[in-house]
């Protein structure tokens, strides 16, 4: 079997001369396509979708637009071009040249980091597979598919690393990435948030805003890695991740916009009977997705995170721009703690607080979008404002997993939580209401009544453009 790899799998890793990779991918690609067929976007194989494909890392190459059938999407393998002078920025190896090969002593830790990251990529595709049936517009359907194929490409990026650098173990892990499934009883995805349902488009937008943003922060800290191929992979993935968060932020923003229009039109806060999603319900979805995503940063005090940092495997956000010694042996960092009835902040050794620091960066970043959504409400003349819940709210990992707090961060009893939780997170009836709005709109230029049309365009095509052809 001769395959033109550069044609089939656009890449900048010299795939056509790397026999090990070729063989690994020959073996893996059919499994990936089977997986895509089985658990990727439902009933979509024959659609022609106006997609962006990365065909090179050059400026003109990374965003090539055309109609593509998704199973024929050219999942490429791209790494940001290497900098031969790149040095390790932090930890015990600071100042040494970055590693082009996996150091044997860090093999298992590196593999675990890559597997954990890789596991999230196909998971979200699985979570979102039924959404195509209820898209609010062709524009949104196309965006969903774009996000899906790019998550697929991110899976490829991680699989590439596993297969190119981790030998037999790496190949087995690459296979396992296709064997675990979101929400599966026996083999669930590794991280909790990736086993949650994404059953409606509001959840999808919230997910891309909050959960994909976790991905951005994880990728950004892996982009600091001393293992150069991982760093370079993540750097390139970050360019795509930005689009996913744009989908989330603009999607929620357009819902807010539509809700405000309905509020003004009917002069009521309760827009449900007019086919809109009321701001309270939106806040509940926000609370839920924010809290679940906050869990993804792991334990507040973590020896693993300390080891990853100290050994140079995973850095902090924009490591080089942080003004400290990048060793953190004697540094401290304020971390939220819980005692009896109180949440308080305590200085802890900074090395162990790496997760918490990244969570702080994340929370600050989340807040920016909230402000933009609030601007929409403000501009529509209303008093209501969205707020991020307290970081202790609805947590399942870390210090706060054993307590119940309200969105303001006050510790409450289990009974109070049971009594009031659906004031704060979506109840079944909220979910079925949102679900009831999910009717497909697939005529070019038309849009569902609960969301406003987008202001922006895709590759200069208007909203009326037929982004997806169903054939």
């Amino acid at each position, binding site marked *: 079997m001769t395959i033109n790899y550069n044609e089939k799998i656009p890449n900048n890793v010299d795939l056509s001369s790397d*026999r090990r990779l070729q063989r690994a991918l020959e073996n893996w690609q059919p499994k990936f396509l089977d997986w895509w067929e089985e658990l990727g976007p439902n009933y979509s194989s024959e659609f022609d979708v106006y997609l962006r494909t990365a065909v090179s890392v050059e400026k003109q190459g990374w965003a090539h637009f055309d109609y593509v059938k998704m199973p024929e999407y050219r999942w490429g393998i791209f790494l940001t071009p290497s900098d031969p002078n790149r040095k390790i920025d932090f930890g015990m190896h600071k100042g040494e040249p970055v590693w082009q090969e996996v150091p*044997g002593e860090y*093999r298992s830790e590196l593999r675990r980091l890559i597997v954990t990251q890789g596991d999230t990529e196909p998971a979200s595709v699985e979570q979102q597979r039924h959404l195509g049936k209820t898209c609010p517009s062709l524009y949104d359907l196309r965006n969903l598919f774009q996000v899906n194929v790019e998550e697929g490409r991110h899976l490829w990026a991680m699989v590439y690393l596993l297969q190119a650098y*981790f030998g037999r173990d790496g190949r087995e892990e690459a296979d396992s990435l296709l064997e675990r499934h979101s929400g599966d009883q026996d083999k669930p995805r590794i991280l909790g948030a990736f086993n949650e349902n994404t059953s409606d488009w509001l959840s999808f937008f919230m997910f891309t805003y909050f959960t994909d943003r976790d991905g951005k922060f994880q990728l950004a800290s892996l982009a600091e890695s001393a293992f150069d191929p991982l760093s370079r992979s993540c750097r390139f993935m970050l360019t795509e991740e930005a689009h996913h968060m744009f989908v989330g932020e603009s999607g929620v923003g357009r819902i807010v916009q539509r809700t405000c229009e309905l509020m003004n039109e009917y002069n009521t806060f309760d827009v449900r009977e007019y086919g809109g999603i009321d701001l309270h319900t939106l806040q509940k979805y926000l609370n839920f997705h924010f809290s679940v995503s906050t869990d993804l940063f792991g334990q507040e005090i973590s020896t693993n995170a300390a080891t990853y940092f100290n050994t140079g495997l995973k850095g902090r956000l924009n490591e080089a721009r942080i003004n400290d010694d990048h060793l953190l042996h004697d540094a401290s960092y304020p971390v939220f703690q819980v005692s009896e009835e109180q949440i308080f902040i305590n200085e802890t050794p900074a090395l162990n607080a790496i997760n918490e620091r990244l969570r702080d960066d994340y929370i600050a970043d989340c807040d920016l979008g909230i402000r933009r959504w609030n601007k929409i409400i403000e501009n529509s003349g209303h008093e209501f404002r969205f707020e991020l819940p307290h970081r202790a709210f609805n947590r399942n990992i870390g210090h706060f997993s054993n307590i119940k707090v309200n969105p303001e961060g006050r510790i409450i009893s289990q009974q109070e939580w049971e009594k009031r939780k659906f004031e704060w997170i979506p109840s079944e009836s909220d979910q079925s209401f949102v679900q009831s709005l999910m009717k497909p709109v697939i005529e070019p230029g038309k849009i569902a009544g609960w969301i406003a049309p987008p202001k922006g365009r895709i590759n200069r095509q208007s909203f009326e453009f037929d982004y997806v052809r169903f054939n």
Partner: protein
Amino acid sequence: MINFNTNPKKYQHWTLEIKGQIASLILNVSEEGGLYKGYKLKLNSYDLGVDIELNDAIQRLRFEYPQVSVVVITSSKDKVFCSGANIKMLGLLSHAQKVNFCKFTNETRNSIEDSTRFSGQTYIAAINGAAAGGGYELALASDYILLVDDGSSAISLPEVPMLAVLPGTGGLTRIVDKRNVRRDHADFFCTIAEGLRGNRAEQWKLIDELVPRSKFSETVEKRAMEISEKSNKPASLKGIDLTDLTREFNDNSITYENILITLDRKTGVVNLTIKGPSGDLPMDPESIAILGDKYWPLALARDLDDAIIHLSFNELELGTWVFRSVGDIDSVADVDDILIKHKNHWLINEIIQYLKRVLKRLDLASRSLVTLVEPGSCFAGTLLELVFAADRSYMLDGTLQDSNDSPAVLRTTKMNFGNLPMCNDLTRLQTRFLNQPEEVKKIHDHRGKDIPALEAFESGMVTFIPDDIDWEEEVRIAIEERTSFSPDALTGMEASLRFAGPETLETKIFGRLSAWQNWIFQRPNAAGENGALKLYGTGKLAYYNKERV
């Protein structure tokens, strides 16, 4: 660098005398002849240098004097047989040096017993003066112990009361396990610094015979004759010479006739490539005797023995030994067949026994052992034991790209099924498949056949079989990972995993040396500034932390 190569002409401490079928090893330690600086070897106390000579003598007796059936160990110093390891020396040595010294002396004591059992050379200890600590332990390695009854010469194991350490050269184990001394008697004996004399020593079975001073020499001679007469060794046997080894040391390599060694100090890895036999191979014992120590299996055993000891003592920080072989696998198997066919011939027996001891030494090495099976290798029979002895083995499945080699194969011979047992008296295959004789049988059923990688993997002979695409990375990563772990933890783990199966005298001796003695050597009660080992001879009393652990 400590040199382990010597010969009787160079001995400073021992004299080897041969009279017919009876040999004498006479200890007269040169006080100034210590291997390290800072101590005098008084009263026939010994250090590593003394033991290197003893080890050499035992070995030469087997190869150069095969007619010898009895070896008498005695002393030419007045009133002292041997007072054991030199304490000042022990106080000065680093921990690693102490442990290596103890291990080597243990291997030497074991080789005495091995010689008695497998070469028909029975050792007699003629204790003609005080035998303390390691001195009595040396006697314990013999089969028969005579003690002079002069009212003063005592045997003793004073380590616990005097030095706060153990009689760690097999003493504790041998008195109960070998001589069947009752444990309460042994307990008393091991806590009384001046030891026991006369009748009590005999009654408690700590010695075999008590002899009046005036009749001592005569009795020793008589016992030697009696034992010799019972032996079936022909007096006409002619030995072969063990000539000096040819070796060349460079900074990062060592070249032996049959082993090429490279030292990678950056990664802490030693690469040992064993060369298989070449040229015409002799088919019968007579031609083998003519070749003498140039005969491949013997020459290899000597090279490997020396390499293992050298690397163990002189290259402490090179923690991973990677074995490869290169040569014609048929020739290796042919050599094995010849050895097995003539194993009853004294020389062939000695060669097999020596290979056995060298492989045992390898099992006991405190190094990670990795064996790589690549095209062009010759891991058959005896050499295949290097695969089984390894903590992990990798066999290349197929060949490397663009190579014309044939894929590597393994081959078992009769050598793998009982002729080269480990310390636990099991073969390496039996130990590998402990309590699973059916697995060993499956491999035995394919004896003599070429076993390619997949089959070797499926039958459990090798650990992993990467193909050419993975080979380099898998091996590199595995070795790098290994070298990143704590050497102490690795040594402990490896030793624990290597010796599955039953305990024997040898496994007990080494197990207790590595656990108890090693621990005590680290403890302040012995090795601290106010510990007994440090204060010995100063007149000051040791301070003991009384906490029991």
